[in-house]
């Protein structure tokens, strides 16, 4: 019987929260032997930071071809939305990208451009990544002979597809959650979830054993009216919170409240004792979120965390209208926040152990609808960290011409690299042995490689 099935059956047979807890405890023990191979000793630290760009970031206006023929194709497709060649910030990769040509960065991203171009660069770009079930050509797509993920071009569905490996569209575990299920026992601290979100609920971090913990941009929120100055009220509140409830929704509410209160004390105590970082973060949505990630990493020792996965998010990328000005603002925010975060990891001496990557449900059409673009498919993505083989463009930059070989039909560019490959490359660095990749990414064997090369060896 598969482990997941067993858990399902165990839970279905469970009537009360007390039983649920004891089952989960037994499962954890049973599971320990299975993952003991991944247990790490010593003081090493590894974290992943998923930067989710909600709405579908237009990667094709984030990194733009600058060689004349390719720029002309881009300009013809994008029309009024084409960024002027002279404004693009030139990229100087150490190795020519597949297919050759030169590229420039959106003018709103000077800091990341500089990170990319520097020696020992911590920044890589992976070209034209998107959700796929199998490698697929334009002819195969148009003939419908090769399956594609369900509900392409839909925000909600492709957000799921990016965050959870394709084969399991029915269940709600993300690949960050699956990684956490493999590694959570590495941490001495078994109370705080290995997966922490600063941007609320997401599928990426949901696992079987590991349920993500949500923290605010300024720290954990306490329940004000049950502090120790009123022990009698506190006792009643806790009695009501911790009673055995007959309804699963009641148990869920109680368990979120319990976890919230337990972790709040632990996290805020650790943050109170923090030696403040010198790195200054931009006071933006993403800047504040990444600052909190940096602060939590900064207190990793008192929190006794060695393996963590963080989730931050920024909305506003669904640029159906006003794309040129709106996307420039979003990318500038991304630029400032990511650059500050990288500087903070260097300051803390954990840059080799922290890998940050972007995700976004889809890119955008190369065709335009006036002053915006529609939902596309493949897009370019950023990977950043001291263990990233930076200053390179990985994957295959696509042909952006209207009706060209990569144009699915209406300007949606068919991905040449699957999300599974992108994610698996990161997962291998994180410590998943190649032989175990299939348990996290069931479809990975369908693609030519599970290592795109942008990460240093684990």
């Amino acid at each position, binding site marked *: 019987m598969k482990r997941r099935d067993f858990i399902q059956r165990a839970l*279905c047979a469970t009537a009360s929260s007390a039983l649920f807890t004891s089952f989960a405890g037994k499962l954890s023990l049973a599971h320990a032997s299975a993952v003991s191979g991944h247990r790490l000793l010593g003081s090493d630290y590894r974290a992943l930071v998923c930067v989710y760009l909600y709405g579908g970031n237009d990667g094709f206006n984030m990194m733009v071809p600058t060689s004349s023929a390719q720029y002309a194709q881009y300009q*013809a*497709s994008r*029309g009024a939305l084409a960024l002027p060649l002279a404004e693009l910030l030139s990229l100087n990769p150490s190795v020519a990208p597949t297919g050759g040509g030169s590229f420039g960065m959106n003018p709103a991203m000077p800091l990341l451009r500089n990170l990319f171009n520097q020696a020992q660069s911590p920044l890589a770009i992976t070209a034209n990544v998107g959700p796929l079930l199998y490698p697929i050509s334009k002819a195969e797509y148009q003939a419908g002979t090769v399956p594609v993920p*369900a*509900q392409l*071009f*839909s*925000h*909600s*569905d492709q957000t799921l597809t990016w965050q959870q490996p394709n084969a399991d569209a029915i*269940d*709600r575990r993300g690949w960050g*959650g699956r990684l956490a299920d493999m590694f959570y026992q590495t941490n001495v601290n078994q109370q705080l979830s290995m997966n922490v979100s600063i941007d*609320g*609920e997401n599928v990426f971090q949901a*696992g079987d054993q590991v*349920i993500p913990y*949500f923290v*605010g941009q300024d720290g*954990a*929120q*306490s*329940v*004000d009216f049950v502090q120790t100055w009123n022990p*009698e*009220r506190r006792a*009643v*509140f806790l*009695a*009501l919170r911790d*009673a055995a*409830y*007959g*309804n*699963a*929704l*009641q*148990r*869920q*509410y109680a*368990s*979120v*409240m319990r*976890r*919230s209160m337990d972790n*709040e004390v632990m996290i805020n105590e650790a943050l109170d004792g923090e030696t403040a970082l010198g790195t200054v973060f931009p006071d933006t949505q993403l800047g504040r979120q990444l600052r909190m990630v940096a602060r939590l990493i900064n207190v990793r020792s008192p929190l006794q965390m060695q393996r963590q996965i963080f989730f931050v998010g920024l*909305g506003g990328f*669904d640029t*159906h*209208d006003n794309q040129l000005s*709106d996307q420039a603002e979003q990318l500038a925010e991304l630029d400032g926040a990511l650059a500050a975060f990288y500087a903070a990891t260097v300051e803390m001496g954990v840059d080799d152990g922290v890998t940050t990557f972007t995700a976004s449900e889809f890119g955008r*059409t190369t065709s335009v*609808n*006036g002053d*915006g673009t*529609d*939902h596309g498919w493949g897009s370019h993505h950023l990977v950043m960290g001291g263990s990233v083989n930076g200053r390179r463009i990985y994957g295959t930059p696509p042909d952006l011409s209207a009706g060209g070989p990569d144009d699915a*039909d*209406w300007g949606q560019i068919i991905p040449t690299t699957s999300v599974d490959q992108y994610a698996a490359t990161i997962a291998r660095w994180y410590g998943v042995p190649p032989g175990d990749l299939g348990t996290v990414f069931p479809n990975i064997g369908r693609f030519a490689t599970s290592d795109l090369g942008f990460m240093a060896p684990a």
Partner: protein
Amino acid sequence: MKSGLWRFALMVTLLCPTSQVWAGDHVFDAGFDHRAEGPYSDAEAARFLTQATFGPSRAEIARLRSIGYNAWLADQASLPASHHRPYLEAQAAAGLEVYQNSRQEAWWLHAVTAPDQLRQRVAFALSELLVVSDQSGAIEGYPIAMANYYDLLVDGAFGNYRNLLENVTLSPVMGHYLSMFKNRKPDLDANIRPDENYAREIMQLFSVGLVRLNANGTVQTSGGQPIPTYDQDTIRGFAHVFTGWNWANCPRDQGGQWWEWEYCPSGPVDWPDPGWDAWWLVPMEAWESYHASEEDKQLLVYPGVALPNGMLTGGGTAASDLQAALDNIFNHPNVAPFIARHLIKRLVTSNPSPAYIGRVAAVFANNGLGVRGDLGATVRAVLMDSEARTLPSLASNAGKMREPLLKLTHLWRALDGRADDGRYREWYTDYYLSQAALRSPTVFNFFLPDYRPPGEMAALGLDGPEFQITTDTSIASVANGLGAKVFYDWRGNGGQQPEDIVVDLGPEVAVASDPVKLVDRYDLLFMNRTMSDFMFNTLVTYLQSLPNTNTGRRQRVQNAVWLIQSSPEYSIER
């Protein structure tokens, strides 16, 4: 924990019989035709009002008991609609600056005090379906226009869904939010295609959803996989349909020149006069020269579809194409279970049985007079279904998490929360409640209808949409926010200003000398008598420990209300 019998003994000291296991009330009513449909107890009345209004009050429980469900529903249907836009216009006329906070004031005023509670509650449910949000820069500067959009939902709450869909589609607010406004026909030389945004979301979120449904809302599969409702060709077809719509009454020479389309000279302007612009309040108008007329358009295909193979042949006008397309959507078999599921989840329970969805969907499909899409009849079917009117067992996992916003409306309706100056300056509650009317983060609402929290609920296959906004942070903020409303913001507390919204603890304190009576009062008012004996006894024991003095009695009230509103049993309404 004391036994249920102990609790029953406490009850006999009260005027009214209360325990749900005691059916004397029910027996007494047998044979009285005028109330044959119930409610047969205060608890049943309170439970119904929890589903049908922004929260029961003692007066409304008594009224519902005296007239019965049918008369109450008929009364609600006959009440004139309370509109939100006039509130903003009155503020503007009085010289106040009108921003989105004025719109939120109007929402609170109506939620807490409007007599047409059912209409307002359904309008709120519709605002979580036909989503627009002031978090979008395209519409945030236009509060009066957004209030007017909300009024479309208020007016449409008991109307026909086909009309509502058309009103929403042609609203400049929706037009700007999902970019159908100024959407134009293709220009292939310039690689310009019609915007797909509205085409996609009207199908995915407002009507048919992504996968084919059976009449009871279960998913149709083929080879184990859900069958998609439409594909990219369909989206393109609708994207072409929804072209050529611009401000009403734009002056047009020779059918409309590009600069007129773009700037609407001497017609509507966005700036510098945001929010007051009359053009935002009337439906968009068609410009034929910008409509993609000539192309054939692939629309939805389904059994019995009127258009052959769902194909709308080219040559139509912007208006005729739009009518045909909305008819094509509206008559898709998915719409009935899709809307039924939404309304049930917003009003009654997160995990309805397929049979319940099927019964409500059948009423949507045909109200008994051969009319499809009658929302008034559909709402009635949602509320009067046996699955809604029967208190479910705990083990069935029926019920729903209360939306944080509705916890606060409930508090203020129960304890007469209001400010001396009559306004409800409860602005931007998303900061601590993760919700505020027409202020969701995206068109996907505050939460998805099929969201399942990881862990036990996911393993059991239980949806809990509201849990999507119940994070470790927000669960504490909601508890803190509600606590502040009852521990600090009460009438008579020092330093109260005319604009402070305060609850009236006076009538509550009068009862608080007897903690049993007090908790019983709240068991009815807040929990339609579903409070467990354990919770009841725990609260009573605690309240008895607080002194029976003026201050102590007030603290009994405050603690009782807050401990209830932050408890697992209250937070999941059953």
